[in-house]
Structure formats: C-alpha cells, structure tokens
C-alpha cells in the first residue's frame, strides 16, 4: 500500500511536467488547429534565454517575466514571418514547416549554449514538501503554477473580449471575420500566448530535467499524449490528462510484471489510443461534428 501511494505521488510529480507542456499544446491547438512539433524546442530556447539573463545577473523573477514577454513577442514574430505565408498551404506543408523549425531551433541552441547540462534554479526550493517523501517543494510549486495558469486561461477565454474573439476565430473563421474579428492577428496572438505558456512550462521543467538543447524531446511527446488524452479543446482536460499519464505510467512500471518497466511508454501510448478509439475527442474534449 505504501508503495502504491508512493508511486501515485511520484506519478503526480512527473505528471506536473506533462501537464505544463500539455497546456501549451492545447493553447496552440486552440489557435491554429495543429499540433506544433517545434513547441518543445521553442520552450527550450525561451528557458535558455532566461538562464542567460540570470548568468548576466538578472534576478530570477525579473528574468522570468522578461522571458515570458520576449517569448510572447517571439511567438508572434515566428507566426508573422514563417507561418503566415503558409496559412493557405496544405496541412502537411505546415507540419513540414514545424519539423524545419524544430531542426533550426535545436541546432542553434546547441551552437550557442552547447550540449552540457546546466543547472536551473527554482524559486520554490527543493526540500521535501510537507515532510512528504516523494514530492519536493518545487514540484508542489509546479502543480500550483499549472493550476493558476489554468484558471487564468479559463478566465481569459470565457470572460475577456479578446479571448472570446480568439475562440470565435479558431472555431468559425469565416463568421468571425464577418463580425469584424481580425482572424489573422488572432492566430498570431495564439502563437504568442502558446509560446509564453511554453516558456513558463520550460522554466518550471528545467530544474527537474536540467537545461540542455534536447531537454524537451521526451517531455513534448508526453505533453502531446496528455493533451490528446484529455481532449485538445479543453485546457482542464489537458492538465488532468497530464496527471493521469504520469500516474498510469508509473503504476504500469511498478505493477505489470516482467515488461512493465521496459514497456511503460508503449503501454501508456496503447492506453491513450484505446481511449481515443472509445472517445475520439479525448476525455474532456467537445465532440467534433463534421458537416457534409
């Protein structure tokens, strides 16, 4: 029983990482209807920027805020410069664009900051949390920030004009244009916000996984999986999905004899596909109705 409780806690700790990333994934999906394969790399780059600022002596929170702002602007710039020209191209071309962006960001970060791992500070400290043996204060802080972000996003999308406009632009672009919403800029805004959320996720994840150009490779995959499990149209679903994937993966590794540990990723992925087959829009997503 203690092992079970411990594994659930360890799963939640890992799940917090996935949940953070999943939020960023949902954000971009809301704006552009695609999964951005370069999102992890963009988050990594943002995290490196904040690290560089701290190396130059900027205090943590200033670096944090500056990075979020810079990432927001950077996201908009990437959309305007690189992806706006592709807006009318087929989806597959866009996906190829994400792959190209991935390669560029990863390689440039490697050149600037090299591939040795870097320690990244946490504002929450890293002692055991409330005497618990498995969750550190940093991980508890991460869960807290994720929940805050989630609440913020909910408020933004439900109650602000611009949030509503963004949702309208994403779900019915034609009608949104007719009521005077600049859908093109809404997409850019979505990129900016996704990039900013990614930056926050990166800065929270880096103290756990250490900062290096390939740090997001594994995280992004799990982030995708979590977002899809929870439903790509639901930020809440994405966060819950993240925790579910974390816990399930740990329990599979512990309790499935023989291959559990070696195959915990395939098992987790198989579970997600099973869920999708039963509920194609994810656990919390709105079912999509197709028109003829």
């Amino acid at each position, binding site marked *: 029983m203690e092992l079970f409780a411990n594994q659930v806690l360890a799963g939640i700790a890992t799940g917090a990482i996935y949940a953070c990333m999943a939020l960023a994934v949902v954000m971009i999906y809301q704006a552009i209807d695609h999964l951005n394969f370069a999102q992890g790399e963009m988050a990594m780059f943002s995290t490196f920027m904040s690290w560089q600022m701290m190396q130059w002596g900027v205090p943590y929170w200033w670096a944090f805020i500056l990075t979020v702002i810079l990432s927001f602007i950077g996201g908009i710039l990437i959309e305007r410069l690189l992806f706006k020209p*592709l807006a009318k191209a087929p989806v597959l*071309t866009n*996906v190829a664009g994400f792959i*190209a962006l991935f390669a560029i960001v990863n390689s440039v970060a490697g050149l600037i900051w090299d591939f040795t791992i870097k320690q990244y500070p946490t504002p929450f400290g890293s002692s055991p949390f409330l005497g618990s043996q498995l969750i550190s204060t940093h991980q508890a802080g991460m869960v807290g920030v994720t929940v805050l972000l989630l609440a913020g996003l909910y408020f933004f999308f439900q109650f602000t004009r611009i949030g509503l406009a963004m949702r309208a632009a994403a779900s019915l672009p034609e009608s949104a244009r007719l009521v005077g919403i600049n859908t093109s800029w809404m997409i850019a805004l979505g990129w900016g916000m996704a990039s900013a959320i990614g930056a926050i996720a990166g800065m929270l994840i880096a103290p756990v996984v250490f900062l290096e150009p390939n740090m997001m490779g594994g995280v992004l995959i799990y982030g995708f999986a979590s977002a899809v499990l929870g439903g790509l149209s639901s930020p809440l679903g994405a966060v819950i999905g993240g925790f579910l994937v974390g816990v399930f993966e740990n329990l599979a590794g512990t309790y499935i004899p023989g291959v559990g540990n070696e195959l915990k990723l395939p098992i987790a992925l198989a579970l997600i596909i099973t869920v999708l*087959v039963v509920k*194609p829009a994810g656990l919390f997503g709105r079912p999509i109705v197709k028109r003829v």
Partner: protein
Amino acid sequence: MSAAEEVVTEAPAVEAVPKRAMTLGYGTSLVVLAALILTPLFVKNFVIFQMTMLLIYGLAVLALNILTGGSGQFSLGQSAFYAIGAYTTAILMEHFNVNYALTLPVAGVICFGAGFLFGQPALRLSGIYLALATFALALAMPQLLKLGFLEHWTGGVQGLVVTKPDAPFGLPLSQDMWLYYFTLAVSIGIYIASVNLLRSRSGRALMSIRDNEIAASAMGVNVALYKTLAFGVSAGITGIAGGLGAIAVQFVAPDGYTITLAISLFVGMVVGGVGWLPGSIVGSAFIIFVPNIAEGISKGLSGAVFGVLLFLVIYLVPHGARQVALVAQQLTAKLKRN
C-alpha cells in the same frame, strides 16, 4: 490554370490530385528508367550503394504516398513498418538461412497484416489524432525490438548483422551492383502495381474517400474496408523497402528505426509532392542528400541548415516536386506551340 494553382486557394488536409496527374508520361518514364539502368555502369560502388538507398527510401515514401495521397490518411509511423520488414528479412536470412529474395514477400505479407490490424483502430481516428496514434507506434517500435524475451531472435540492442548476397548464376557483377539492379527490379514492379492500383476501381474508391468520406460512403464505397486496406498496402510496401534496406545496409538495430526515420519519410513525401507517385524518388533524394549538403555547409549548424533548406522548399514550391514538374510541363507545351 494548373492543378497546383487551383488548390492553393483552399486548404484541405490533403489536396485532391486527379488520378491522371499521379504519374509521369511514357516518354519521361522511359528517360528516367534508362538513367536508372545505365548510371551504375559509370560510377563508383559507393554511389551505387547510395542509389540503392535512394530507391529503397523512394519505395517507403511511395508507400506513404499511397496512404496519404491515395486515401487521405496521415501517418507518422512508417518507421515501425519499415523496422518490422527489416527485422523479418534479417531474422529469416540469419536464423533460418532463407534466400534473401524470398524474405521480401514474407516481410511484405507480415507488414501488410500489421498495417491492416493497426488500420482497424486507426479507422476511428482522423487528422491530428491519427497522426498522433501513428507517431506513438513509431516511438514504441524501437522499445519493442529491444525486449528481452525477443533477444534471441532480434539480437536485442546489439542488432543483427546481415550477409550481403552475391550476384546469382555467376554474373560478373559486384555485390553492390547486383543488389542495385535487384532493388530496381523490385521498385519498378511495385511502382507499376501502385499506379495500376490507384487507377483501378479500388483506387477510385480510395480517392473518393480522400476527397469526401461521407459522400463516398453514400455512394456505396465500403469506407472502413478501403481505409484499412490502404493502411495494409502501404505498410506492406514499406516492409519490403525495410527488408531491402536491411540487405543493403547489412545491419539491423533498434536505433536505426527511430521516429527520426518516420519524420524523414514524411518530409520526403511533402518535398516530393503529396499524391504524386514519381515525386517519391525526389523526396527520397531530399532526405538522403540534403543532410549531407547541410553538414557540408556547417557541422555545428547542420540541423539549422537542413531546416532552412526545408523552409525554402516549402515556400518556393509548397506542392513539392509535382509543382516543378507541372511548371516544366507547361513550359515544354508552350515551347512546342511556338
């Protein structure tokens, strides 16, 4: 107005390609074929080896093209089927002493089965969800190949060394040259079969699903069957390519079939032009040679150079090699008229 320009105005998941536009004319085909047959006589063994790999990846891209360009389904998991094919060939050759040529149909059939089975749950998924499910398959495959209880057959993390076959009947050909012509024969066979498949009743059914699934089912096309069949056929061809790849490289190991391979094949398809079968070889050339070029330009930034080149391609010719071919066709037509 060309076909390429028409589809620019809208943005469907996969553009509609009329079936006639999927192939090359007879004249062009013959020229390409002659080049493929004659070039190896004048180049080094190493270049022959590269050309063999070009054909093999070309086959794998072609397989993806049948799936995506034909039936409109997305896959980022082709590396999984490529791996199954490669391992089937390697295990049959090394553990059971089966002739290399006989292992290919087996690899094809096994992969067809695997693809058909995977196509069942994939039926319920579309677009981004299907992409993710196939992505998951590609991620899981190297781990499955490493499994302890399969180690006796797969060689585990170490992989298996495969023996390269000699030319049969005492033909005075080097191993590389023989394997090239063997691969070429297989490729031509599969290419012709694929073209005919897409031109057949089944091909029309597939394309109707691609263009409008609901309308297709209303017209009596068995959507589920055709979609899973497309997955199966695509996986089968990929498996044969994988088997050939194992023979050419003389080695299989889980590290050779990671998600990177699946992404490369996908990039190859986009560069070659979705739905345009001859473009497969262009796409294959892109994924083999462009990383080499990128690396030649800058070691530290090879990834960035590759990315920039890929961006250039999708900006300048968003429809890939097909667009270039169309423009060339129009130009020659104009010249003829003058």
